[in-house]
């Protein structure tokens, strides 16, 4: 708890959860929102930050990142990941359970929470595994993990291959009111694939992953959500077909929610040209038609949430022949800028909708505190400059990972100040 009040003065306060969009002041007291919008005098002893020309919004929440601890602390720790998040304007992250060992029991969940608190930066919420060891066989103990602080379950990194197991997970999760997040990939169709299947993969001689590998699992999960009434959350949707399927499910009132990631909104399979392993991720970068469809999905709400799928890897592991390199890129520190550059600047999303997808919706869908500046809400706030241009320099990242396809690019939009529980955890130097 913060002893001093914090006054964010004169910014454009945008809070889609309350419909607020005004120039004014935001006062945080005792770690909570005290008042938002009204111009107020500075309370005695309050810390004041001038937010003139900046946007003040409820803190961004990333429901999908890989913090690598325990197991690969050389690549990322919960602390470095949390600080990277804060530097990207993200006040809370959900850590995927595909660590070593897997976060598949209450003790492991407790460890992630403990490390998150010790990091003393962005909040870290654990996601528990669906199956023990993420082996896709036996259900993990959802109840105990939720009791220990897990906010969702997922076998991310791998799909839940067995439809029966997925059905059971969706049914069982209902008791705890948590989403079951699935990495949609038909493993037999995608087997050995290194990039999107198409003309580029044909030319480069790389094994392709067809869009259908994602779409088959997406529709299976949607149908299982219909069958069970459970809440399925589809991770990192990347194809035009997936967007259409999710839209179909939502139209029928099925409890399906979905996320998209900055790279699938900004880059295409052409980035793989030259065998650049920074363009290797799963799901792979797709075609321009897919990118446009996913953007439209974000715009019309078919995609509920913008997440990062932040996945740091060691440079040595990325410095390999394309097929041998691991999947994934870092994203915590570039997500806001990529989203602004490719969604807000071209006029696809308003700033308010961007904030809704990056803050309000994730809080609501994952049942997390925050995502709002209503009085009495958790004092997690992001202050950002939506017009600032900056050049991405991976060497300056707070994450240990340097694996980004955006290195050297000039992006627009940058977090200036990140506030967690009424306390500044990041402030631009």
């Amino acid at each position, binding site marked *: 708890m913060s002893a001093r009040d914090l006054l964010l003065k004169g910014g454009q306060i945008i809070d889609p959860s309350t419909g607020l969009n005004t120039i004014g002041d935001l006062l945080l007291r005792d770690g909570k929102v005290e008042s938002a919008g009204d111009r107020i005098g500075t309370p005695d002893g309050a810390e004041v930050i001038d937010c003139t020309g900046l946007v003040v919004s409820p803190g961004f929440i990333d429901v999908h990142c890989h913090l690598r601890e325990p197991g690969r602390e050389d690549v990322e720790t919960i602390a470095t990941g949390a600080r990277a998040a804060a530097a990207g304007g993200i006040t809370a992250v959900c850590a995927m359970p595909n660590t070593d060992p897997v976060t598949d029991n209450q003790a492991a969940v407790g460890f992630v929470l403990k490390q998150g608190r010790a990091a003393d930066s962005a909040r870290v919420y654990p996601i528990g595994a669906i199956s023990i060891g993420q082996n896709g066989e036996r259900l993990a103990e959802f109840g105990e993990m939720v009791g220990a602080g897990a906010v969702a379950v997922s076998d991310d990194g791998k799909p839940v291959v067995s439809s029966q197991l997925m059905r059971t997970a969706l049914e069982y999760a209902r008791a705890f009111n948590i989403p079951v997040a699935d990495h949609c990939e038909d493993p037999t169709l995608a087997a050995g694939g290194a990039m999107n299947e198409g003309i580029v993969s044909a030319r480069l*001689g790389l094994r392709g992953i067809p869009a259908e590998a994602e779409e088959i699992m997406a529709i299976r999960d949607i149908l299982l959500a219909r069958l069970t009434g459970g809440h399925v959350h589809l991770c990192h949707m990347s194809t035009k077909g997936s967007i259409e399927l999710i839209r179909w499910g939502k139209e029928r009132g099925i409890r399906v929610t979905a996320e998209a990631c900055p790279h699938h909104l900004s880059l295409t399979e052409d980035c793989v040209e030259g065998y650049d392993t920074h363009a290797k991720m799963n799901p792979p970068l797709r075609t321009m038609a897919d990118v446009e469809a996913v953007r439209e999905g974000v715009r019309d709400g078919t995609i509920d949430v913008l997440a990062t799928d932040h996945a740091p890897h060691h440079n040595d592991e990325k410095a390999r022949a394309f097929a041998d390199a691991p999947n994934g890129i870092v994203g915590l520190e570039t997500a806001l800028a990529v989203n602004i550059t490719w969604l807000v600047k071209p006029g696809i999303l308003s700033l308010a909708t961007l904030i809704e997808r990056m803050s309000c919706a994730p809080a609501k869908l994952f049942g997390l505190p925050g995502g709002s500046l209503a009085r009495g809400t958790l004092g997690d706030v992001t202050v950002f400059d939506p017009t600032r241009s900056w050049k991405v320099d991976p060497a300056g990242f707070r994450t240990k990972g340097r694996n980004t396809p955006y290195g050297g690019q000039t992006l627009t939009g940058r977090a200036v100040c990140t506030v967690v529980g009424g306390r500044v955890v990041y402030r631009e130097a």
Partner: protein
Amino acid sequence: MTSPLGKDLLGLEKLTAEQIGLILDTAEPLKEISERTIKKVPTLRGATIVNLFFEASTRTRISFEFAEKRMSADTVNVASAGSSISKGETLVDTARNLEAMKIDMVVIRHNSSGAAQFLAERIESNVINAGDGTHEHPTQGLLDLLTLRQRWGSLKGRKVCICGDVLHSRVARSNIWGLQKLGAEVAVCGPRSLLPSAIGEMGVTVFDRIEQAIEWADALNVLRLQLERMEGGYIPSLREYNRVFGVTRERLDRAPKEILIMHPGPMNRGVEIDSDVADGPHSVILDQVTNGVAVRMAVLYLLAGNSPRLAEAAKGGV
């Protein structure tokens, strides 16, 4: 002081028709060297070439080795079995070690697409791709072009059909780009399960039946069908493959014109090609092998020359 091909030969897709023409024009007179009693010219004296084979290969490695030796280069063969490659050394470390040993050229065969480019970006030496995964095998493509050009004079307007497992074939890709650049019409024929799904976007005609391909083509380049493809479930059986897609004498006899038959080897006789076709009068398969050495000599000759260290040695020598 750059070579007309640039530093490396990684694939035919990025070469111009002029560059390909230069390689073929250079290869022609080099064929004579292999006819001499003393099959050797001093051109690459003092140059060190490493043949780095991460994947088993007999004919390509031997062909390169002959080419190198006939140009008087010093060669070292590194094969994956028994070397540090098999001990998990990364490609990066291999590259750094090679660089530290002051070599001039590397011929690399690797099972990953893009491996040659990966190496080329990390070392100063010239890199020649001797086959990377399912991407390209440029010297094979070049020797195929040379073989056809010797028969036809020009490839313009000629029809060449690549038959078989195009999906997994680096030879197919190098052939498609090379043939198209030299003005030939290119088709592919094989079961759709062995063709890339985006094959239509590569500017080639697709024949589902070998009979159609034979009716259309001036030459067939018959690819090797890896036995693993059956185990991988791409085709039901080799027997059926031969019956439906095999290039057989009976099928060729029905062709409206003479068709040249090529095969990059090693052949699975009785699977993708029958023996009496492979050994028949229209087979140019052995010409391909002969041309392979000449084309590789040409590539070595054309790539050499932007090595500063060799330039120094040359000044001090002779």
